[in-house]
């Protein structure tokens, strides 16, 4: 198959590999997973749940190996454990100090059980590898349908919850005072994260999942502080990483997960370098105590605001100076 004796090297027939039917499953599945990861990633960072996202992937491990043991679909076991684990973390982790320790403890326990179940089921070592490192090529047509349904569910939920979820992430006390069900929102978010993790594990595995969900979102937030734009950029990075990853893995006979993760991390590192050394934004200057100049648009904006404020004040003459009781 290869033109060289080595296990990896340029494969001339990569285009025919890429366009074969099993590869199209991988590409479609990978795209769905990347869209899901990109959508949820922004909120993972805003809500400070990156560690929980990482842990959830590991919590899925005993689910997957346990499912093999019981002769059930691996994805089902993964899903039950990821979503269940997400809800447990949501309940336990009310205070952040508790959440770190609770999450880490559950993570260790889950990994241990994953290993134990795997040792009981003699033929599951390939499952173990697939869950740990992902295997896009193992995605079946039936799974694609499930993935598509989950993606629609995820996108619809995030679309519906967008503003309350953002509000309760940025300013939880005020959101609660304004009557938002912040605990419920938190649980729903964790469940959605559990779903996204279940899908992403199939693509890149538990060990590499961080790079598909959290890293692209972190990269996007470095590039823009505008939430919708950050979500679009994050999704684009995830999708491009998956597509390039699958293409390059076909070209050079490499494990797709490895290439996907390397691209996503490479983009993050590049943006991080550029941000630090080429176009440092005012954050750096402000933190070093240097007064940075205001962005160009704000001058016009504050003139508008003054005009508006004048109108505003003109409409309220009766509220001026009627506080003689001081």
């Amino acid at each position, binding site marked *: 198959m290869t033109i060289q004796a080595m296990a990896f090297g340029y494969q001339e027939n990569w285009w025919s590999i890429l366009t074969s039917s099993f590869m199209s499953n991988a590409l479609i599945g990978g795209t769905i997973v990347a869209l899901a990861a990109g959508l949820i990633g*922004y909120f993972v*960072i*805003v*809500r*400070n749940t990156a560690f929980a996202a990482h842990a959830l992937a590991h919590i899925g491990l005993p689910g997957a190996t346990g499912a093999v043991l019981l002769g059930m679909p691996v994805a089902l076991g993964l899903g039950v454990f990821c979503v269940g684990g997400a809800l447990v973390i949501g309940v336990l982790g009310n205070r952040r100090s508790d959440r770190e320790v609770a999450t880490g403890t559950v993570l260790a326990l889950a990994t241990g059980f994953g290993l134990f179940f795997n040792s009981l089921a003699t033929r599951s070592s390939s499952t173990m590898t697939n869950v740990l490192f992902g295997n896009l090529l193992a995605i079946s047509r039936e799974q694609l349908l499930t993935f598509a349904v989950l993606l629609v569910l995820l996108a619809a939920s995030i*679309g*519906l*919850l*967008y*503003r*309350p979820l*953002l*509000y309760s*992430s*940025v*300013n939880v*006390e*005020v*959101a*609660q*005072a*304004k*009557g*938002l069900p912040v605990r419920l929102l938190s649980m729903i978010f964790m469940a959605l994260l559990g779903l996204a993790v279940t899908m992403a594990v199939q693509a890149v595995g538990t060990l590499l999942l961080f790079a598909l969900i959290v890293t692209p979102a972190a990269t996007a*937030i470095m590039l823009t*502080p*505008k*939430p*919708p734009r*950050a979500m679009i950029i994050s999704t684009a990075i995830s999708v491009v990483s998956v597509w390039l990853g699958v293409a390059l893995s076909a070209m050079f006979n490499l494990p797709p997960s490895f290439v996907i993760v390397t691209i996503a991390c490479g983009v993050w590192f590049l943006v991080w370098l550029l941000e630090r050394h080429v176009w440092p*934004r*005012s*954050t750096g200057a*402000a933190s070093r105590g240097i007064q940075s100049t*205001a*962005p160009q*648009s*704000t001058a016009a*904006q*504050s003139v*508008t*605001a*003054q005009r*508006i*404020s004048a109108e*505003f*004040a003109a*409409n*309220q003459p*009766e*509220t*001026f*100076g*009627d*506080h003689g*009781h*001081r």
Partner: protein
Amino acid sequence: MSLSEIDSTATALTFDDVSVVRGGSLIWSEGTFEVPAGGIVAIIGSNGSGKTSLLNVVLGLIAPASGHVRVLGKPPGEVNQIIGYVPQNYAASAGDAIRVCDAVMLGLNGTRWAFGRPTREERRRVAEALDAVDAGAFADRRLSELSGGQRQRVAIAEALAARPRMLILDEPLAALDLRNQREIVQLLDRLNKQLGVTILVVAHDLNPLLSVLTSAIYLLDGHAHFDTLDGVVEEKLLSHLYGTPIQVVRTPQGELYMRSRS
């Protein structure tokens, strides 16, 4: 509602024999007082005396163990859409991922479901709120890029965006330097006078606020009381309240301040 509909003669808070129990123990009781609307009211008391519990009762987040509470004439919690709440530690974690104007916008439409583009009217009100706190110049910055004083202004702008009739601030001056403390105090005074909003402010240090306060709710010996500023700024009461001898000094210019006497 527009601000011109504000009825500044209404009562801001009515407490009738209110008590608060947290975790099985009585925090304070016998809270019976009326706070008139339109003033700047300090909420004072030593650490652990139940200031935060009092805020939570006003916001309807905890139910009083006994008694009746009215906030702007309604049961607590029912009027939270016209109460601007500024908690401590505003946006401590998410600051890198959101701009100032987006955060303030959430104060206006954050409780509405679904994704939606802000309307022209919403943008106008955000600009107005930012301008009211002199924060228009950093509307496009990330929250994480702001100094402590700027961040506090943005928190107040977010509360103002919904055009509240009452502002509740939890320790707004903690962790600010003297200049920023003075600027926030002046800002509160201006908002109170120009917009007619009643302001409740939890503060452990009264000195920076003394020039603008009208009255105070104080938590003393497990009871909640309310009095005018002159009634509260009194050596015996303050010494008792803080558990250390306090001297009240009036400067020849008429300024009031208090200090711990050794």
